[in-house]
């Protein structure tokens, strides 16, 4: 039986499928980025991505749908932004960056193949990046950022009517999840910057639930992937100690979690974090 009963806080992270997408060569030169920085080492980026997919597929046993890259869509590897999946329902977003709007097509087909209820965001006044959507297992927080607007959040609320959808202003970062994510049921990983802490306060005020927080020194490291895999329990994919040693130490204090450090140095140069590169889906039945 689907429904709320399976969507409580404890079921957060349940996952059977994942959708990922290969990175195109155009990523290095044309991917959107907040600020110019070091050039992306494509080979290394690919290796890191393969490692990432390998963990999902081999280590965690997820069924991974790997979409082919599209050279005309330099940001297509960041599949998170184009779909929000909760339970059996998938919202195909309307990404805030016009250059990314076509990324949704492949995703839509992939999700349809999984028999999810597909909702498309067709309102031309609406924009929403999945990176601005934090689902805690109990409710949604939607960051209002350069990429996501009020209308997009409203449509998300209309799509997932069971849940409260609260908006959180995001100023300095690309996305809401640029500095936070769920690190466990009821546990929010949050960066230490003022903006991150302010956003957390907003979320705490807006919520009827009390979340524990895991504060890490680095905002980017606060973006991690929590999974609850049958037989493996709490699994946390977090940034490698080589990248963020201090933050990694914080994660390492999570005794109940199976910790999997993953390097993401290259993708981060184009504002890509761990959650950006996959859409996680829990198919409980074929109903």
């Amino acid at each position: 039986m689907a429904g709320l009963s399976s969507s409580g806080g404890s079921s957060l992270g349940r996952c059977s499928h994942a959708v990922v997408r290969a990175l195109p060569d155009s990523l290095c030169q044309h991917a959107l980025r907040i600020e110019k920085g070091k050039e992306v080492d494509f080979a290394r980026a690919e290796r890191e991505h393969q490692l990432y997919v390998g963990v999902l597929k081999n280590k965690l046993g997820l069924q991974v749908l790997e979409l082919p890259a599209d050279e005309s869509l330099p940001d297509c590897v960041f599949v998170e932004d184009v779909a929000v999946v909760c339970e059996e329902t998938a919202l195909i977003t309307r990404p805030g960056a016009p250059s990314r709007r076509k990324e949704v097509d492949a995703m839509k087909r992939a999700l349809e193949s999984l028999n999810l209820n597909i909702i498309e965001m067709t309102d031309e006044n609406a924009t929403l990046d999945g990176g601005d959507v934090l689902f805690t297992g109990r409710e949604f927080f939607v960051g209002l950022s350069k990429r996501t607007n009020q209308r997009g959040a409203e449509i998300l609320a209309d799509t997932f009517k069971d849940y409260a959808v609260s908006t959180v202003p995001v100023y300095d970062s690309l996305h809401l999840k640029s500095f936070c994510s769920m690190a466990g049921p009821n546990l929010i990983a949050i960066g230490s910057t003022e903006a991150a802490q302010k956003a957390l306060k907003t979320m705490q005020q807006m919520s009827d639930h009390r979340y524990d927080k895991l504060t890490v020194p680095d905002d980017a490291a606060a973006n991690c992937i929590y999974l609850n895999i049958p037989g493996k329990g709490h699994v946390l994919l977090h940034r490698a100690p080589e990248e963020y040693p201090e933050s990694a130490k914080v994660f390492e204090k999570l005794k109940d979690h199976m910790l999997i450090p993953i390097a993401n140095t290259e993708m981060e140069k184009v504002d890509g974090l761990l959650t950006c590169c996959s859409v996680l889906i829990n198919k409980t039945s074929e109903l």
Partner: protein
Amino acid sequence: MTTEVGPETEVKKESEQLEADAAKNKQDEATENQENQKSEKTVSEEAQGSPSPALGTQSSPSSQKKEKEPSEGKGISRFIPPWLKKQKSYSLVEPKDEAKKKPVEEGETVEERECQLPGEVVQPKGSVEEATIESEREAKAEDKEEKHSVSSAETQPAKEDNKEIEVEKVADEQEEKQKAEENRETKEVQTAEINMEKVPQKAPKKIKTVQCKVMLLDGTEFSCDIEKRAKGQVLFDKVCEQLNLLEKDYFGLLFQDNSDQKNWLDSSKEIKRQIRSLPWLFTFNVKFYPPDPSQLTEDITRYFLCLQLRQDIASGRLPCSFVTHALLGSYTLQAELGDYDPEEHNNDYISEFQFAPNQTKEMEEKVVELHKTHRGLTPAQADSHFLENAKRLSMYGVDLHHAKDSEGVDIMLGVCANGLLIYKDRLRINRFAWPKILKISYKRSNFYIKVRPTEQEQFESTIGFKLPNHRAAKRLWKVCVEHHTFYRLISPEQPPKAKFLTLGSKFRYSGRTQAQTRQASNLIDRPAPYFERTSSKRVSRSLDGAPVGIIDQSLLRDFSAATVGPAGDMVFDGEAVGQTKLRDGEGRDEDGSPTKISQLELTQDEKNNSLRVDGGNIYVRHSNLMLEDLDKTQDDLLKHQASISELKRNFMESTPEPRPNEWEKRRITPLSLQTQGKIGDHIFQRKRLPVKENQWTAVTWITKAKTEETYKKLASRAEGLCAGPSNADKSSHETLNVVEEKKQAEVGIEETVVIEELNRGKMQAVTDAGETRKVEHLSKKDSSSLSSDSSSSSESEDEVVGEYQPHYRVAKDTIREEQEENEDAKGKEERATKTIQSEETVQEGSKIKVTVEHNQITAKALAQENAVAIKVGEKNVMEEEKQDLRAEDEQLRINGDVSHVDIDVVPEIICCSEPPVVKTEMVTISDATQRTEISTKEVPIVQTETKTITYESPQFDGSAGGDAGVLLSAQTITSESVSTTTTTHITKTVKGGVSETRIEKRIVITGDADIDHDQALAQAIKEAKEQHPDMSVTRVVVHKETELAEEGEE
């Protein structure tokens, strides 16, 4: 119905002291009463053959509630000088008499009389019993007094509603009966007497009745005749009786006004006055959605909640996703139809159900698909599953109101168990938990909330919303008051009394709070009532799966006819009517005895509740808290406030925050500094009440230390007791708040601000209430225990909800204790009445002691203030009585160890209700008393001297004064030894990349003079240094409270 009761009540009150006699009489009368009751209650009850007490309970489920109120009134009356009492009673009586006098209308009237009579009979009993109880209570515990006072307050506003009061009294009586069978007998006797009295009165009076139609949740219509002047409670109780619903506090009656807006029928007011010219049409609805339906005691309650939610979902009020619609629909099918049967359940079987506003074929298919998976679930289990899913919906229990924000943008305000939610379209754009809200008010069509300042802010902010019209604003305000009270308080606040000045709305939630109703329902011990589900008409099963027997409908009909006297007038919708009858009748008819028992039990519960409710303290609090600014009185209010505001401010500022965390703040800023330094106005007040303040401060300080400890204990208990998911959530939230508060404390300024707010709120409340109110409050407060009073008064008086919240914790704790105390009191009462059933637990005894202590404290405070001698005298008497009643141990404490009482009791009390606020309120009250000279009771107080000395290292200020930084973690550890209690707060913060760990230890050294405090302090500091060698001591605050003299008469 109750018109006659009024005089009786008076008699009862007077006869409180005569309890013993009354009891004797009761016994004699008991037989008579029983007879009367039986006849009145009609054949059905008689058929049950249950003892008269049972009958009484049955007849007055509603009356029980009412009883509570009256009892409260009595309690107040106790405290209040006799002449005041008489006034109240008379006023009450007169209206009642009038109502009775009104010509009864023919057959219907007769029928009503019958129905009423049982109630009336019960009521008189109740009044007598109450009176006795009250006297007992007074003697026994302050809590009781508080409750009583509350009731009195209620009664006063409801002057016109003497009937209800009487009913309540009756209910109390019933409860008492239930509690002790022995007691019951006596009570019955009493009731009989009363009945006798009433009956003659009634006979001459004629009652006008009106036919009410109530739409029930299953879509059927229930009609009954009701006295034209009846209060909402009468009708509501009738409906609940019809539904066989015991856990009725979650429900209410709605009526539609001319603009199609739905309003809740106020059970404490006359129906006629609320609906005016509108038709007497009502809808029975869930009013307070239980956050955790699994904590409801009875399946039948869950069933009605399910019916409500199905309506909510089908109408779109409760939005769900497709999947949830299907899932909930499938549970509905399982509950209504049982296991899926392919033969019986063809494709059409689902079409009669509506699962969603826009039900599609696809959805129906999904519903059927899921229905098949529920095989084996009983209806009750299916309902439970339904509720478990429904309760998680984000809009579950959210009462939405259209509004505009300050910029004219359309928004929705959602009132729910946890606070106020602000929606724009479907998005939640803000949320104000009850603890964050200091005050709720409305003015014209504007609705305001005053919000506690955040960490970054120094002052509270008021947020205004524009409602469509004045009525909408008031409606929203009332809903907020009710929700806050129901979910957040342990017991309801007393509505402000309208004596001389009537400023703002007197409206308060007068029903049980969630905590109370939970406790009450825990006592429900009837066999699971049988009820038929609407569509299937199958007999319901309890969760146990025990099949319900089929009831002989003829019996039921008889019952309904007999019971419902006016049944003939009732409009039955074919089967529906019959079903309803069956429901009511089933329980009763099937096993007359079991049913009766259950009813009796209920009565007991209600009694407990009533006692709790009686805690007038709460009421007092509320009255001030929720200010309602009426347009008419706006100017007056302003003026009044202006004049009083200064006093209040001074007072308020001086008052420490009730929160346990405050102690930290105080460390930073010594109490004395805070009080004196912050506001110049303070001085003014100080001058007036120097003694008071000193005491207060001292108490506060001690309280802080002790409070924390107690607090924790209480909190844990409270949480447990209150139970409920919501509570858990709240507690967690509160924890968060604490942390934040700590930060604030570091900042220092913020703390002060908070306190000021609190003070202001109190001030305002006081102001609003006017001196008159103050006087009332004073009387109430006097009667009530300090802790409860203080918290309650502060809340009520202050318009500020925020105070409520902080109090909240305290309140919960207090409530628990209060409840316990109440129980104790009840027990005591019973004992007194019936020569005691020695069954009372030790705990009760201890609790009682606590209560007593509270009283003493109050008395002391009052004494210091040089309250009116007369009042004092009364109090003394009261106390003496109490003492007598109390156990020897208690007496020892009171008489012998005054000092002990002060030290020990004060902290405890404080813990119960939030100490600082309480004390402040106390002070306020005393002031008011002095001014008006109306204070009811004034007991001599032991004067204490308070000294606060702060040693501070220069470093500290810098760190403390700077940014609070980011709080990484906060931890509180409490340890106790014989004479010392150590509370350690460890906070880790990050400021500008530098992490700082601050350990604050609060060491409370309690003891007599033979303890060397200086040595103990030195030892404590030494230990602290040893434990944390790498840390430096930045501040030492010594707060000393010593007794100066004993003035108490105790």
